[in-house]
């Protein structure tokens, strides 16, 4: 892909923008708390609730659902198979399956839902200023639920997410979803059962080789889907994103819900991306600590109750955007040949074919991108991006001025920015600072990050740790805007590192970065050329870049934009370089996967303390994991399993040259060769 002619690029751009354009027409929001503040919560919780289901199906009692699953051909096949392999009688395996199902299944009860409706109304009113929902999206969803089985795919930033989802659907009299939840909730006895009764079903985090578990689980989900008993909800990202960046999607459940379409068991499946944006996330500082290696507190009921002090704070508003339902049928048109399923009995489980796998993978990425597109951004997100590039602080007036500039840039890149109408800029900036006073403060006209003041004397490590918490918390806001700027920013970096302004060379750098960072950011597989073209288009559109003939050059007015973009990605470039350096310089022969994160962390701490590194973000385990995943993908590091330990084997030459390219010391072409 090193020589791509300009004209193909142009065609691609045209197509891409056409495809993406409809998404940019976004709906308006309604605040659902407004009515709650003006009328009785009790009445609301007890009101008549009669949602319309798929093709007028009557709702299925939880027990009946279990019976259908236990009697399915699919499950019987696996039970017999397991019975033959293990020598156990089928009855016993059947009993096992029934126990698994018991542990897994939801027990949706309207009374519990009403309880939550009441309790959450109270809680939301104290915690949040507004809970805004796009009602047009709700109407589209209502339509979709009646026509096809629906899968709700919300973004995942907080524990609140699924309670909030059910709360909204209840509010709008829509069918309540059944929600795939991690087994960790089950630890909280009472809460776990409450969640179960509000529609959650529980799955073990890992059940790799357990055929029976997989069969029960997938048949349970498929039965609900095929019959359209309820919309199915799960988180494509698999877990809450601690960084507020979207996580690369997990495919297991998506495979399960798409398969009935390929097998012709349903006419279509509609995937509905839902973007839930929090102005302030409840778990904000918890996440930062977690990323820095303080293990996350085990979910326990008492822990949740302690969280009550959270209730006294102001968490701003929530925006929930229900995206356009995506028809799996339309997506698969021309990509997957369904008749390949014709020659194999449908009840026998089978690994999806390559064609299907790549389709599901592609779909997953596209859905996550749709989630990103409709995330609502607050002005603070822009301010956080600027603050992080000025860790020593900056004048309030400068911050205000740059925020206004950045707002213009973000809007021209189609960011979904919630900037208050008619409010003077100074007011917007000051109220943002007020809401996030835990993160930034103004003193003497200068804005800087707040560093938590510990009690008593502090070691240099502790001070560093405190500062890192602030930086990572702040970064979690900057991260929210990354998807808007990512592609032009990578192009800006590529222009900076490329040896010349030749389009091909810039493209090579771009494609290296694209590949390198594809664990950290949502980059749809195979979209590299399209992304490059989009980046070019956007930078040209905002006047930062010109493209005479086969060159890409900065314009006279391009400097601020390009340097902002370089600064935006700087922490990632530096972070990855630190990882590379660690692997080349410090890593011992038998480095295990387990040791990797603490080792990189202490390496980075040493560098920072010695004044050789100013980047705190490399302390984030998320970045460390992503960097390792990238190096593994690029074959610069290999995993070897020795006994029970997974050891990392480092190809120092390859890692070294990656380090050099990231630092701009080596042109991409050479480095790529070195990798081979």
């Amino acid at each position, binding site marked *: 892909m090193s020589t791509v002619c300009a004209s193909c690029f142009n065609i691609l751009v045209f197509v891409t923008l056409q495809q993406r354009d409809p998404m940019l027409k976004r709906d308006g929001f309604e605040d659902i708390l407004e009515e709650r503040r003006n009328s009785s919560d009790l009445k609301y919780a007890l009101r008549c609730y009669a949602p319309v289901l798929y093709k007028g199906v009557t709702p299925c009692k939880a027990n009946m659902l279990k019976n259908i699953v236990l009697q399915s051909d699919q499950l019987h096949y696996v039970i017999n198979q397991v019975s033959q392999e293990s020598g156990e009688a089928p009855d016993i395996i059947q009993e096992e399956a029934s126990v698994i199902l018991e542990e897994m299944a939801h027990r949706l009860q309207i009374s519990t839902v009403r309880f939550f409706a009441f309790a959450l109304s109270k809680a939301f009113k104290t915690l949040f200023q507004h809970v805004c929902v796009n009602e047009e999206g709700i109407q589209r969803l209502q339509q979709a639920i009646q026509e096809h089985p629906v899968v709700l795919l919300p973004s995942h930033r907080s524990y609140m997410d699924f309670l909030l989802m059910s709360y909204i659907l209840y509010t709008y009299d829509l069918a309540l979803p059944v929600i795939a939840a991690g087994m960790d909730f089950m630890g909280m006895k009472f809460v776990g059962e409450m969640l179960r009764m509000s529609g959650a079903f529980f799955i073990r985090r890992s059940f790799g080789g357990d055929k029976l578990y997989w069969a029960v689980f997938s048949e349970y989900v498929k039965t609900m889907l095929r019959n359209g008993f309820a919309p199915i909800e799960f988180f494509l990202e698999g877990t809450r994103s601690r960084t507020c960046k979207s996580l690369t999607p997990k495919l297991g459940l998506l495979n399960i819900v798409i398969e009935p379409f390929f097998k*012709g068991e349903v*006419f279509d499946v509609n995937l509905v991306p839902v973007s839930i944006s929090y102005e302030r996330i409840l778990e904000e500082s918890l996440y930062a600590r977690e990323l820095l290696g303080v293990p996350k507190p085990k979910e326990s009921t008492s822990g949740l109750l302690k969280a009550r002090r959270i209730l006294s704070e102001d968490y701003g508003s929530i925006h929930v955007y229900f995206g356009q339902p995506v028809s799996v049928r339309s997506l698969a048109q021309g990509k997957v040949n369904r*008749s390949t399923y014709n020659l194999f009995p449908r009840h026998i489980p089978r690994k999806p074919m390559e064609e299907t796998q790549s389709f599901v993978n592609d779909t997953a990425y596209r859905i996550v991108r749709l989630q990103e597109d409709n995330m609502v951004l607050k002005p603070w997100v822009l301010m956080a991006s600027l603050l992080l590039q000025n860790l020593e602080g900056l004048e309030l007036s400068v911050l205000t001025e740059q925020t206004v500039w950045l707002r213009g840039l973000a809007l021209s890149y189609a960011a979904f920015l919630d900037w208050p109408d008619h409010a003077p800029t100074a007011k917007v900036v000051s109220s943002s600072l007020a809401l996030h006073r835990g993160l930034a403060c103004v003193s003497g006209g200068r804005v800087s990050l707040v560093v938590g003041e510990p009690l008593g004397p502090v070691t240099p490590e502790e001070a560093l740790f405190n500062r890192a918490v602030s930086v990572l918390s702040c970064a979690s806001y900057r991260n929210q805007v990354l998807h808007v700027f990512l592609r032009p920013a990578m192009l800006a970096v590529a222009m900076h590192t490329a040896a010349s302004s030749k389009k091909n060379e810039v493209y090579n750098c771009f494609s290296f970065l694209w590949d390198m960072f594809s664990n950290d950011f949502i980059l749809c597989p195979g979209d590299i050329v399209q992304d490059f073209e989009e980046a070019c288009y956007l930078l040209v559109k905002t006047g930062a870049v010109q493209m005479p003939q086969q060159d890409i050059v900065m314009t006279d007015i391009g400097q601020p934009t390009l340097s902002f973009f370089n600064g935006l990605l700087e922490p990632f470039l530096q972070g990855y370089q630190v990882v590379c350096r660690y692997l080349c310089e410090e890593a011992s022969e038998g480095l295990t996967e387990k040791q990797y994160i603490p080792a990189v962390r202490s390496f980075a701490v040493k560098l920072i303390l010695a004044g050789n590194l100013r980047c705190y973000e490399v302390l984030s385990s998320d970045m460390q994991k992503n960097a390792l995943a990238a190096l593994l993908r690029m074959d610069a590091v290999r995993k070897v399993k020795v006994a029970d330990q997974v050891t990392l084997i480092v190809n120092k030459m390859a890692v070294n040259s990656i380090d050099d390219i990231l630092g701009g010391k080596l042109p991409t072409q050479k480095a790529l060769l070195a990798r081979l």
Partner: protein
Amino acid sequence: MLTSDSCLSLHKHGSSMASDSNSSESQRIAQQRLRIIAGHLQKHKDDDSGTIATECKAEANKGTVPRKRQEIMKWNGWGYSDSKFLFNKKGQAEFTGKRYRLSGMVLPSLQDWFENTFGASVNHKSPATPALNASAVPPASLNEAFVEDLKATGIPFSHEAEDRVFRAHGHCLHEIFALREGKKFERVPDMVVWPNCHNDVVKIVELACKHNVCLIPYGGGTSVTSALECPPEETRCIVSLDTSQMNRILWIDEKNLVAHVEAGIIGQDLERLLNESGYCTGHEPDSMEFSSLGGWVATRASGMKKNVYGNIEDLVIHIKVVTPRGVIEKSCQGPRMSTGPDIHHFILGSEGTLGVVTEVTMKIRPIPEYQKYGSVVFPNFEAGVACLREVAKQRCAPASIRLMDNEQFQFGHALKPQVSSIFTNFVEGLKKFYITKFKGFDPHQLVVATLLFEGDRERVLQHEKQVYDIAATFGGLAAGEDNGQRGYILTFVIAYLRDLGMDYYVVAESFETSVPWDRVLDLCRNVKERINRECKERGVQFQPLTSCRVTQTYDAGACVYFYFAFNYRGLADPVHTYERVEHAAREEILANGGSLSHHHGVGKLRKEWMKESISSLGVGMLQSVKDYVDPDNIFGNRNLL
């Protein structure tokens, strides 16, 4: 749908055989039969003269179909000219003519059903061009040398526009629509020949090879796969080889229960002639009124009563085919052979691409002593399919068992003739009350299975009980003989009904597939949904009618038949729209595990999916046979491959 049809003879024979049917009915039927025979005799009186008699002509030709088909059949629609549906001055539907059970009857509920189902109105007519416009027919480009040599053989031929146009089409929607609209034809046969026997065919094929003329065999003309369409790119003279005059039973062998028959014979004549000797073939495709034995072989036809008698491939003992390389025959009539791949299977389904089937030896059976219709009502389609599956599993399917969906059930009801007595009305009302109110069946969900039992009386009654018992376990209620019989009437009148629809802006077509049992329901649902959706997307203003039925059961699956119709007012090119929708529906069928065709064949309509269906290697195998048998593509209809 059109390769289907004619329960005409079925009903006649059926009821006269049934020992308990009332005598006035059998008298009426006997009279009707006499009338038909008299009609045929009359027609053959003024047979084309001026042709030289050949040895084949020694015997008088007794077939139903004259050389000039247009004398008794519609040139731009289905079936006999004298039989058609129309809305009379009072707006009531009636069926004209005297040939069928419905003939001369008024159908009071058809208008309501028609208008409500399609959003059509009897006031909005879309009449057909009254007569063939000869100037729309391209002039015949004759191969003079061939014509000269042909004349010498004395085999009759014609190059009149009417004869040529009649053989330029089958009964696909686009073909009939074009005829009705008086559209200009791109390519029609340049001449028509009527061989009288096998030897005539041998001569014609020899001459065609000698003069490089393209031959297109023509049997009953009931193709619904564009198989009879002339390839527009064909520059040679195209000769339509009409087999209709090769219609004799040459001998009957009662010891082995086989009959040797000329392949041009049409279904109703074959059954009638065999019946005279106390036999039948039992092969009753819905089109048997007009379709020919040779056509059945060439398309792998399936008969309604295949559960007792088998499909055409099970019935055929020997086939004689004239190809450009010579005549294909076997050396004996052994009932089964292990002599390599069965060469009959190159012929069966070859769709006229290899040669002309001239004579067939096929199994015959004594006429069954007793015949009885029946029907079962199920609360929904799912229950009905489950019942048919169980019947197939227990291998106790009656001669015919068909499951109609709710749309077709309602359609069937719209075809009920005016009831003369108040009592019948009352009984009908009572039945309806019992099923919908007492048994709680939803009239918009319930479906009906129609049954036909055959055999000796005792066995039939026993068999009947067994099937009804199975049905009961799936919630089925016996719903009487009358409903069953009406289901089979629907099969043959539906082709006539399409012409009525086309008079009022409604286009309709059918298509079929075969599918494993476990996919039947999914396939039916998805195909219907796909049709509805495609119609909407393509700007069809009215809700289309999509209906299906399971028409055949097998051990491992079933044959499913779809009807699809819509009101095309407001569409610029309804035929194109229709074709796109059918195309999409076929893709949906294939994606849902259905076959490309159960019995209609491929023709040119479904050629594009052949590779996908039988692999490119499979296509290559067929192609190599074609290349060997017909290297110069004399049989150039370009079907199949």
